[in-house]
């Protein structure tokens, strides 16, 4: 299975986007950074014991599924929406949702638009080859409005076109637009319209047919949620791993039970995954949160206990 391949190779091949601020982009030293990247590092830490043993494969909207199907990458972590046809027809397995997003519209304040319903006749920048494109077409169709699509092939390109005024509206996932807006010289000149026209559950994907590998990816993700729920952080994970009075933490970090073995990994897998970049909340904060230029709110991505949708399956 994929697990053995990864182990014998000694590297995890992880498909990411070649450049989306906050999610994945190489820095000046060529080290990949971002939310999607951090997730891959967690998987690598769990499986191989070293978060740096990841080979990042930049994929485009077009090549991503083929790269996965052909075995070029082991996991695709590229803000890909979980949809019915992708899951079934394209033979993919979604290993869970690690980011709840929704499609929104970004417009300039000076246009005086306050609702998406006012956008009749507008020119809309949109990344081609994404679900966004289909949502957009449907939304305008339902509301009996017309629009002029301007297809772009990357987020950076869409942003440039929007800024230059080549389109009135830029539509994309809310997280993306928030980071785009944040990077503008004066963000307050732009508004995100209140309508969220689609649900975009994003998450890592693996090939269909390798249940063990899908489980590993899914439970690594879950471990990160659970760690946040249980208050396990990058800082205290080593200390808690030596034993705590919470049995669930003990099970999670390999002190009790043999959950790791059931996955085909060793006992400390989750501990390493958490140590790699912290729990889910920490990953979010370092890549997308308030301290970053992107300044994204947790919103739906908060824990279920805090009004969000993030909910770890029980480690038992």
């Amino acid at each position, binding site marked *: 299975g994929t697990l053995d391949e990864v182990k014998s190779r000694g590297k995890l091949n992880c498909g990411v986007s070649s450049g989306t601020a906050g999610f994945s982009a190489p820095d000046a030293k060529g080290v990949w950074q971002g939310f999607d990247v951090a997730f891959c590092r967690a998987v690598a830490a769990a499986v191989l014991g070293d978060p740096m043993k990841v080979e990042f494969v930049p994929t485009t909207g077009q090549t991503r599924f083929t790269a996965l199907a052909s075995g070029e990458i082991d996991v695709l972590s590229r803000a890909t929406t979980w949809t019915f046809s992708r899951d079934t027809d394209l033979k993919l397995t979604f290993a869970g949702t690690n980011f709840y997003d929704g499609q929104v519209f970004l417009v300039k304040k000076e246009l005086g638009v306050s609702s998406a319903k006012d956008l009749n006749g507008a020119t809309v920048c949109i990344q081609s080859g994404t679900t966004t494109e289909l949502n957009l077409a449907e939304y305008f169709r339902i509301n009996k409005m017309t629009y002029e699509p301007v297809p*772009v092939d990357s987020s950076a390109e869409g942003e440039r076109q929007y800024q230059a*005024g080549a389109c009135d509206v830029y539509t994309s996932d809310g997280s993306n637009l928030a980071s785009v807006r944040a990077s503008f010289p004066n963000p307050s000149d732009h508004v995100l319209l209140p309508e969220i026209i689609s649900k975009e559950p994003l998450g890592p994907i693996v090939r269909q047919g390798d249940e063990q590998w899908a489980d590993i990816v899914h439970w690594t993700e879950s471990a990160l949620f659970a760690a946040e729920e249980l208050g396990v952080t990058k800082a205290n994970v080593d200390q808690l791993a030596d034993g705590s009075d919470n049995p669930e933490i003990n099970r999670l970090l390999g002190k009790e039970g043999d959950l790791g073995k059931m996955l085909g990994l060793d006992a400390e897998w989750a501990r390493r995954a958490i140590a790699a970049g912290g729990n889910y909340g920490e990953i979010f904060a370092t890549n997308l949160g308030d301290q970053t230029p992107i300044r994204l709110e947790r919103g739906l991505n908060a824990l279920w206990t805090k009004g969000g949708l993030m909910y770890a399956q029980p480690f038992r």
Partner: protein
Amino acid sequence: MANAITFPTLEPHQAFRLSMLLNDGRYRSYTIQIFVLMCLMLGIAWLVDNTIRNLALLGKDFSFSFLWSTAGYDINQRLIEYDTQMTHGRAALVGLLNTVVLAVLSCALATIIGVVAGVLRLSGNPIVARLTVVYVEVFRNIPLLLWILVFGAIMSEAVPAPNAFKGENATAGMILGAVAITNRGVFIPEPLFTRDLGTLNLGIVEPSLNAIAVLVVVIACVLISRVLVRHANRVQSQTGVRPVIWWKTMTVLAAPPLLLLWALGFHLGYPELRGFNFQGGFQLRNALIAMWLGLGIYTGAFIAENVRAGILAISKGQTEAAHALGLRPGKTMRLVILPQALRVIVPPLISQYLNITKNTSLGLAVGYMDLRSTLGGITINQTGRELEGMLLLMLIYLSLSLIISGSMNAYNARVGLKER
């Protein structure tokens, strides 16, 4: 030739031996060809077998039925009717038409630029010649993709947005009140008719009868003017003097179409700023313009070199001979230089057309919805039919190429110089 000396007589027909398969010129070529054929068949069989097994492994089949399912995505530039509820096949057709339109426009632009630059480069004026050299070298030595991106950037960065046309203190204005150059495209007046003859339903497309009527009349006028020219030729060959017919041909070419247009109530629909954008008129989108300029100017540099080479290939002696015979420069050009230069220029020109057609596939870079972006892009991406989609895509490009190179061969066969 009787000769007494005994001579080793050999049997006239040697029996077939196996070694002749390799040593006998007649059989060896068959041996080799059968060997090659077998290798080829084995190779193809191997590929097909792999493909079938891979498809089975992925649980996919091989079928083109996806072409008849709903596309769902939008195409901004469409020459025939299209909306999101139509099929992927229809979307591919729209893309194909966009490809063809772009190719035709770019070929025209490249030819004009190339011919002008090629001629200017040979002009005695050193400044102009130097500038054309700069143009040719700069464009030929930098990748086309970069140029397309640059033109895309120019069109969206250096050109005013529509709302710059708005209000009292507008910072931009329309050219002659009819053409608006904005960073969403160039808006030009569109032809409109007050008397609409309706449309002709041909199944796939529904062309407007007005357009057909205009086209028919124009073609008829061209044919008539050809008759006039032929008549002039006849008069010339009989009397030696060529009758002056330019005004007749002009009239024939211009008057009937103008009359028809008047009868149909032809007028121009001017673009107007309404709402977010200019409405009315004809919109040439940025992607089209960036691709058009990129392809046209880039390829123009190559054509300029071909043109220059073509003109240089006609030796100075030809001009001198024509002058010595008393032919004026204009006639020398028309009767002696051009017919010869064209023979040299046209074949490489057509292969540049071929390049343009293939290079339209870079439309993706600026979001031009050509065949590759529709069928080879969004459709494949949505349906996961990369095998079928790519095959179809390649076949279509191949047919376009074959059509173009076929026309080149026909031209070569027609004008090839006769040699000893």
